[in-house]
């Protein structure tokens, strides 16, 4: 599991790679929490292009970040879900509460459109 982050204005982009399961969830949670707290940013773009595996523990960790940031009026957008990763998100009904985008640019546009409306 590797997570690289970058802030663009009031959006934190986190590029996650590796396997997201019970063994990596603690690192994932801590890394995202640290970064959102230290920057004070509440909007998160999760780029999952490099995620080769995810199970319900991984979904739970993402849902946890979503709930946490939502309380602070932030949003979580998903980017680059591989077919097998998308299937897991869909089965869990998570794409009903989080929007998913093809790439980071489209996700950034997604934030901006939300703002204009």
């Amino acid at each position: 599991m590797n997570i690289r982050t970058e802030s663009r204005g009031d959006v934190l982009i986190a590029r996650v790679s590796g396997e997201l399961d019970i063994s990596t969830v603690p690192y994932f949670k801590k890394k995202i929490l640290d970064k959102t707290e230290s920057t004070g940013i509440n909007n998160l773009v999760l780029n999952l292009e490099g995620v080769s595996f995810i199970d319900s523990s991984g979904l739970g960790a993402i849902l946890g970040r979503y709930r946490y940031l939502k309380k602070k009026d932030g949003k979580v957008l998903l980017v680059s879900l591989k077919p097998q990763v998308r299937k897991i998100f869909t089965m869990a009904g998570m794409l009903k509460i989080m929007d998913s985008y093809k790439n980071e640019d489209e996700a950034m546009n997604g934030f901006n459109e939300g703002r204009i409306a």
Partner: protein
Amino acid sequence: MDNHAHITILSKNNNVGLARLSVATFASELDFTLNEIEEIKVAISEAVTNCIIHAYPFEEGLISIGLKIVENKLIIVIEDNGVGIEDIDAVLQPAYSTKDDHMGLGLAFIDSFMDEFTIDSNRDSGTVLTMAKVPEKHKNKKINNVIN
């Protein structure tokens, strides 16, 4: 072509990957598609994670993974000697979890991704999950045979 193997691991977070990879490698002897192998990996991950979180909440215990190939069927038996399940019908409901911060989707995923799935459990003597999957290819063959 029939084969069997057995793996015992400690209920440590780090060992979920080992379980997943070993089972995926064993399964690859059959004609599963990559997509089907991914489904098997999710099922194993959920079952082993449940042993780690639910079966042995306080101390490490052993998780036994039995693997068998009989004709074209992969049979997986995952066993723990943990706390057991009180109400099996309840836990089988999607989104049901006895832990607040858990999604309650693990058993539902196993049920969707495997062709056969049963749970045996006794309070305090542990839980046995038995699951099986046949490559889609071979299922189609069977149906074709019936049609022709």
